[in-house]
């Protein structure tokens, strides 16, 4: 395994040049058949960045991510580079500005290989809603070796590309599990930071009270490298937090100098398979060796989280996606009046799942239903947040499975509700705005990756990455 730190050492020691590193990843990405990139940038585009990066190494003035080839989920506006949100409606959209998150990554010297495929407008848990076709998981079910499996979603292209090692790391976004669930299904690390850590400026909006950018990487340390870059205050995002950021690399690999308690919510485990429970038991065993204590905890709101999410997220989405009207940018349908242009642009430009969510959102916000659904869901959201705060008074972290199942076959789950159930363990944390990380914890009987999720308190990403790095060392993972 090659980590960012190892690559940077090789670049510093002149074992490899920035150009050679880039070519190695570019050529692998070019050959990949998993559809994990909507667009791979032409090498010409990166020429000057690579030269600049190399001269910084030559002068021993390298930046934190200098020369590191990254994938960027196609939901981040990248100046001069098409940004589609994997939707037909944005097929020809070329942003005139750079998102804060990607600007930070560029400022730290990283090189963008291209834009990762994702579910359309990040709405999906399998990457099958993309206008550019499904992404394939590099992992195979050993009992059904010919089947193409989903990588999870919505950051499925990011997770697949990182797992296939055609980019060193990728930046995704997570609204209800869109970083953690694909990371789990592809056997890589995925971190959703606290809401407010990373600016939403220039991120194509899905549900603005939930959307949060975060890294998908091969190691916990790599996630810390990326978080150091992307977590920053931005006055362009009114929900951006302006607290002083930790150095997230500070705790990596170090044991805690105080006793740590982890809560395991029994209500999360009542309906899951023995394979999934085994992941939790194994984690417990590994961490007990490190003098970490476990207690059972119980939430009272878990059964209501998905319902709350599937009211709030579509409601916010229906409002956010009202901007796609075919007038100022994006796809324009034919029409002799403004109304016809609006309707035709939207009806022809949006895919099936996006239309479904706009309709749900419009319904729950419409007169006569607003209080019963939207307002009610916002009240329950407060109870969910309070529930987490109650539990986190007594424990440092919460341990759960990331997903209820391993990667499934492309085309297998056709029912929307069955698909929504994929996020049953990730959605509660999103509603509470808490940071959570998914780590590969083992393999299923079908030889597919399974993951566990660790949840921390607000802005405790440094501690979360620290415990994850200790656990990562303990897992025997033959990936």
């Amino acid at each position, binding site marked *: 395994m090659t980590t960012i730190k190892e690559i940077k050492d090789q670049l510093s020691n002149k074992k490899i040049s920035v150009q050679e590193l880039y070519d190695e990843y570019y050529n692998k990405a070019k050959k990949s058949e998993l559809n994990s990139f909507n667009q791979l940038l032409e090498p010409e585009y990166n020429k000057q960045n690579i030269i600049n990066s190399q001269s910084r190494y030559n002068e021993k003035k390298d930046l934190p991510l200098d020369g590191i080839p990254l994938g960027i989920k196609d939901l981040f506006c990248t100046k001069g580079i098409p940004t589609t949100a994997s939707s037909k409606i944005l097929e020809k959209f070329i942003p005139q500005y750079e998102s804060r998150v990607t600007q930070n990554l560029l400022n730290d010297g990283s090189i963008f290989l291209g834009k990762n495929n994702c579910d359309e407008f990040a709405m999906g848990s399998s990457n099958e809603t993309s206008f550019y076709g499904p992404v394939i998981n590099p992992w195979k079910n050993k009992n059904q070796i010919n089947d193409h499996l989903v990588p999870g979603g919505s950051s499925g292209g990011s997770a697949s590309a990182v797992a296939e090692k055609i980019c060193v790391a990728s930046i995704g976004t997570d609204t209800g599990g869109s970083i953690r669930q694909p990371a789990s299904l592809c056997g890589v690390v995925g971190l959703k930071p606290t809401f407010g850590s990373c600016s939403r400026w220039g991120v194509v909006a899905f549900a603005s*009270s939930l959307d949060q950018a975060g890294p998908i990487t091969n190691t916990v340390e790599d996630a810390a490298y990326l978080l150091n870059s992307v977590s920053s205050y931005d006055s362009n995002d009114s929900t951006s937090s302006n607290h002083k950021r930790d150095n997230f690399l500070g705790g990596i690999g170090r044991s805690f100098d105080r006793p740590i308690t982890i809560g395991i919510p029994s209500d999360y485990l009542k309906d899951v398979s023995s394979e999934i429970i085994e992941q939790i038991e194994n984690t417990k065993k590994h961490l007990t060796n490190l003098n970490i204590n476990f207690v059972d905890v119980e939430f009272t709101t878990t059964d209501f989280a998905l319902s709350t999410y599937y009211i709030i997220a579509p409601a916010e989405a229906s409002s956010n996606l009202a901007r796609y009207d075919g007038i100022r940018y*994006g796809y324009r349908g034919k029409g002799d009046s403004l109304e016809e242009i*609006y309707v035709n642009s*939207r009806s022809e430009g949006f895919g099936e799942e996006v239309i479904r969510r706009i*309709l749900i959102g419009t*319904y729950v916000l419409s007169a006569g239903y607003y209080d019963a659904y939207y307002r009610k869901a916002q009240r329950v959201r407060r109870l969910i947040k309070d529930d987490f705060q109650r539990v986190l008074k007594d424990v440092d972290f919460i341990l759960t499975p990331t997903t209820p199942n391993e990667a499934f076959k492309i085309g297998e789950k056709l029912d929307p509700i069955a698909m929504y159930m994929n996020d049953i363990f990730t959605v509660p944390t999103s509603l509470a705005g808490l940071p959570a990380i998914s780590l590969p914890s083992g393999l299923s009987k079908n030889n597919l990756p399974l993951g566990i999720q660790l949840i921390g308190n607000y802005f405790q990403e440094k501690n979360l990455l620290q415990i994850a790095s200790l656990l990562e060392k303990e897992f025997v993972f033959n990936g």
Partner: protein
Amino acid sequence: MSDINIKKVSYLAKLALNDDKAALYEKSLSEIIEWVDNLKKIDTEGVKPLHNITEKNQNMRNDEVLKKNSTEEILSNAPEKAQNFFRVPKVVE
């Protein structure tokens, strides 16, 4: 069963659905609304709605005009334009 009027909802969302699609979405929405209806079982009497986790520390900034984009840049993504404007069908009768 819920009482979803899919034609009305799609009209509000500026989406056109043919009869087949309308039937499909009506069924799908009914199932989803029925599924989320379990929220009726949780008591939220006296609980304040939570709009955003950062409700207490939203940041304000001065509302200053920053000229970061040119008209040309903004219009470069327009599906149809004329001179310095977005072009649309005639609106005034």
